[in-house]
């Protein structure tokens, strides 16, 4: 058992060290996605760099690379409040990403424009015999959702990152007025290819 743990730790360190060499490409992200913490959901997405450049910085012992990129990131997500609302979000972000090889971390600022499709329970009926809920009458609404986002994360292997992301958006509605929305993501990114 000890050997197995040692092997696992060394493997992780090894892949982390390898990962410092250069960032990978074509990530698929999967995250726990929640609106205001209490409305849980999931989100999947990807990220395509359309411009990338690197700068080198001399350290005390070695030279480190900072890789910067401009990217576009399409995402699909949902979040819901049981018995009340279900929301589907189609979102696209354009942003600036900075990857530090020294710490194997990255951070990104982005702005997004989302299309939020919301299904809301307006009326329902309660069976007084067993308490079951039925005849849910749902109203569908659609909204634009511009957002400002900040993400940070860390590479944990050649193909895998964890990341966290905070987003602030404004739900735009022609007949109900605008309202603020805040989101949080916590997830992983898996890279389909690595740069070799």
């Amino acid at each position, binding site marked *: 058992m000890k050997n197995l743990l040692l092997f696992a730790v060394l493997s992780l360190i090894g892949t982390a060290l390898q990962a410092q060499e250069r960032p990978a490409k074509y990530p698929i992200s999967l995250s726990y996605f929640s609106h205001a913490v209490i409305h849980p959901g999931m989100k999947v997405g990807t990220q395509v760099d359309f411009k990338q450049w690197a700068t080198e910085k001399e350290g005390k012992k070695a030279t480190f690379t900072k890789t910067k990129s401009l990217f576009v990131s399409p995402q699909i997500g949902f979040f819901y409040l049981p018995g*009340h609302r279900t929301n589907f979000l189609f979102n696209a972000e354009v942003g600036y990403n900075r990857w530090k090889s020294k710490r194997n971390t990255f951070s990104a600022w982005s702005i997004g424009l989302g299309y939020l499709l919301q299904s809301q329970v307006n009326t*329902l009926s309660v*069976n007084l015999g067993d*308490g079951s809920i039925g005849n849910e009458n749902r109203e569908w609404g659609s909204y634009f959702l511009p957002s400002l986002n900040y993400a940070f994360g860390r590479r944990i292997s050649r193909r895998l990152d964890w990341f966290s992301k905070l987003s602030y958006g404004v739900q735009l509605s022609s007949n109900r007025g605008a309202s*603020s929305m805040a989101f949080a993501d916590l997830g992983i990114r898996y890279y389909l290819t690595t740069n070799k």
Partner: protein
Amino acid sequence: MTRKEFLRTLATLGIAAPLVTTLAASCNEKDETLQGLDVDYKGKVLIIGAGAAGMTAGYLLNRFGVDFQIIEASAVFGGRIKRLDGFADFPIDLGGEWIHTDPAVLSRMLDDSAQQAKVDLVTYNPQTVSVWRNGKLRKRNITRHFYSEYKFKSTTWYGFFERFIVPSIQDRIIYNSPVRSIDYSSDRVVVKDRNDNTYEADKVLVTVPVSILKNSDITFEPALPTEKVEALDSIYFPPILKAFFEFSERFYPDLLVMDDLLTRNEMFYDAAFRKEAKSHVLGLFVIDDPAQTYVDLGTDQAIIQSALAKLDEVFDGKASQFYVKGAVQNWTTEPFIQGSYSHFEENISNTIRTLIEPLNDKVYFAGEAMNLNGDTSTVHGASESAYLMIRRMLQL
């Protein structure tokens, strides 16, 4: 915790109601059903008060074949649930209005698996929310993402009781009999009303508002224990008032909060929200200090004019322009209510434990303030307290 702090906390929790509702759905159920139990109680029970707790208690005693009577101070059943018919194209709740928990509570209140009926509800989560503060109207639509409760779609709390509870107890209610004394010093409990009628029973269930007990409108012989009096004194029972206004056109948001979104002591709300009504009816819910300001105006007409003047200030005179008619329910001046509902300022569970402690195993207490399961200050909580106390009274 001061009263203000408590109200603020309560309101904050109210904002988080959807989460609480979801989580509570699984743990808010009564311990177990009371259906099918054999009750071998041969004594007589007097229930004082035909509000939600009193009616529910009668409903259960009727089920168990126990001899009982309900003594009601006013001319109608309902207590703090009351209906206004004919004002608009939907019935209006003049008292308890919202369902503050999982809607399945309606089934648990009846505890009758043979019941086939269904009740339509609306999800009450105002979409357009504004706050009027310091002379400015500010949109607070973010509230719509967090605040959500339920309301009856085409009936009221009063209508719910009228249809499902009252038929089994209506012959047992004695109206216009405000109780003035309860003597539990001998084997039988002797109850006297202000009309000098005397009633005797083996057990009595007191379900009157806390205000009636706090103000000693009912005297007890022997007197209430000191700890119970202190527990009653620790409960804040603020003034409250509701009013409804019909307008020829709609000019208001789903919810307009005056001054403070967290405490929500004074709010105007679209009473027809999702009710498929054509009437434009705005409700006013005002509690605590702002309510007292209205109450001090004295007459319903003065209260309506004051509210319209506030709305005119917010909406540039549109309230007076589109005003059709108004109605006021002043719960503070109702002689057998005298306020709103209980606000606990100290240790809630200890206070409730003290309040519900029976007197000599003969006099029991139930009501919105007496629900040890937690949902105080609500209609369903009052009903649940009756379940708990009948279970205890009959040792089920």
